[in-house]
């Protein structure tokens, strides 16, 4: 049953997953090319100075990509469930509902982690050849909140898609938009969210609960 459920989730998300993976790697390549061209033009010392004194991380093109990927994956995975109320089929499967929803969310989250980790590895491996370890770490910490925002966006969109009533969908959407705005409050500052990483991780765990609420309301009959 477990493998069958994974198979179903994979069928829904595989296209978005591969497109997102390719785009992420292309963006990583763009970041590397940008840094490389700076080094070619000005030398690596100027690059270092720019990163230390001007907070220039060169990873800005990555910034909103995890957010877009998280939203796209959430829609690709959950919208088919709510189209024609197909969720009824899923909830009729002889499998505990709480485990069913957990598995759906875990599948999407793991796919996001694979995309984000691969992108981060590509950037970090290149950075490690030209930057000291401490600076590589700073670059990764700069990108980490963006990746976490991507997971938050995925969880919010999932809850919105699984919600049965427009009223609650609007409420959940507003909540999601507010959270995303908070996560992108400090533009251009490297590792600006270091002190908030734990808070964001706790927030992700809380957001994961939203989808369970949407399913519970669906089972109550709260559907437009």
């Amino acid at each position: 049953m477990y493998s069958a459920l994974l198979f179903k989730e994979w069928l829904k998300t595989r296209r978005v997953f591969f497109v997102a993976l390719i785009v992420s790697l292309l963006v990583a390549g763009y970041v590397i090319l940008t840094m490389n061209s700076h080094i070619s033009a000005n030398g690596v010392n100027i690059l270092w100075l720019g990163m230390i004194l001007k907070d220039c991380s060169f990873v800005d093109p990555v910034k909103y990509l995890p957010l877009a990927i998280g939203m796209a994956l959430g829609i690709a995975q959950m919208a088919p469930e709510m189209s024609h109320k197909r969720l009824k089929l899923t909830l009729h499967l002889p499998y505990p509902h709480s485990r069913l929803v957990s598995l759906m969310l875990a599948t999407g989250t793991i796919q996001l982690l694979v995309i984000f980790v691969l992108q981060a590895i590509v950037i970090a491996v290149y950075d490690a050849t030209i930057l000291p370890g401490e600076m590589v770490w700073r670059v990764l910490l700069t990108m980490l909140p963006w990746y976490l925002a991507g997971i938050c966006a995925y969880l919010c969109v999932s809850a919105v898609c699984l919600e049965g009533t427009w009223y609650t969908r609007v409420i959940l959407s507003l909540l999601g938009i507010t959270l995303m705005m908070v996560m992108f409050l400090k533009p251009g500052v490297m590792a600006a969210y270091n002190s908030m990483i734990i808070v964001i991780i706790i927030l992700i765990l809380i957001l994961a609960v939203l989808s369970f609420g949407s399913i519970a309301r669906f089972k109550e009959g709260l559907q437009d």
Partner: protein
Amino acid sequence: MTDNQAVISVKNLTQRYGKGRLIYSGLNFDVPKGRILGLLGKNGTGKTTTINILMGYLRPQSGECRIFGEPITEIRPETRARIALLIEGHIQYSFMTIEQIERFYSRFYPKWNKDAYYELMNKLHVSPNQRISTMSCGQRSQVALGLILAQNADLLVLDDFSLGLDPGYRRLFVDYLHEFAKAEEKTVFMTSHIIQDLERLIDDCIILDYGKILTQTSVADLLRDFACYTFTCDTDTLPEFDEASGIVNPSLIRNEVELYTFKPREHVAHVLESHGISPSNMKRREMSLEDAFIGLTGKY
């Protein structure tokens, strides 16, 4: 659950549309093992609502529903495996292909019969790799039916299986389902808005009107006991018949009167005479289930 217990048991079910119109109040019915029961009613009488309640997608305002002896809000996954569900419009995972959907469902049901599914699919002349979203409504209905047959469940719950189907596919659906249900002693609870399809299929029926059950009986008993009388008379208007008269939905077109009743012919004649109507050429008309349904619920 013992053998003589009802497969579906509904007690004092009351439901409203939101906080507004009452759909029904104090609804009671049982579906015995091995019977095919059709829930009939006009649009908006609560057929799909009842199925949604029974399947746990809607919490009723009050009342108790049990399937295989378990309260519907606490049905175990093992019990759900014994129930096959057809959602209105033959909805399935349309992003899957014919082959993928069979493989997917086969993992959940211990009595899965792959051959039953592919026997039906072979009649469709479609490729195993064809995606369900690219199929016609009729073809999708056969996929849904094939999955139900393959699941080999003890209880089949079918919500408006005839929706969107042309006569050929409807007939195919009914014939397959009837043969399967009777040969395997399955219990079936179904709704359809095309009553003539159900006549070939169901043993028992519940006819719902707005807010109440009009009758719950076997189809054979309904067609035996419920009669349509026609006669001519010299009158421009018909009187109001009260409930005690047992006469329902009388209609007058020119001098031809048509009325329906569960009462015997003598009783009808007596009621008519007491209202000053002298019927001539009074006949009992042969009725189909659809005629009986319209007779009970009215044309409007």
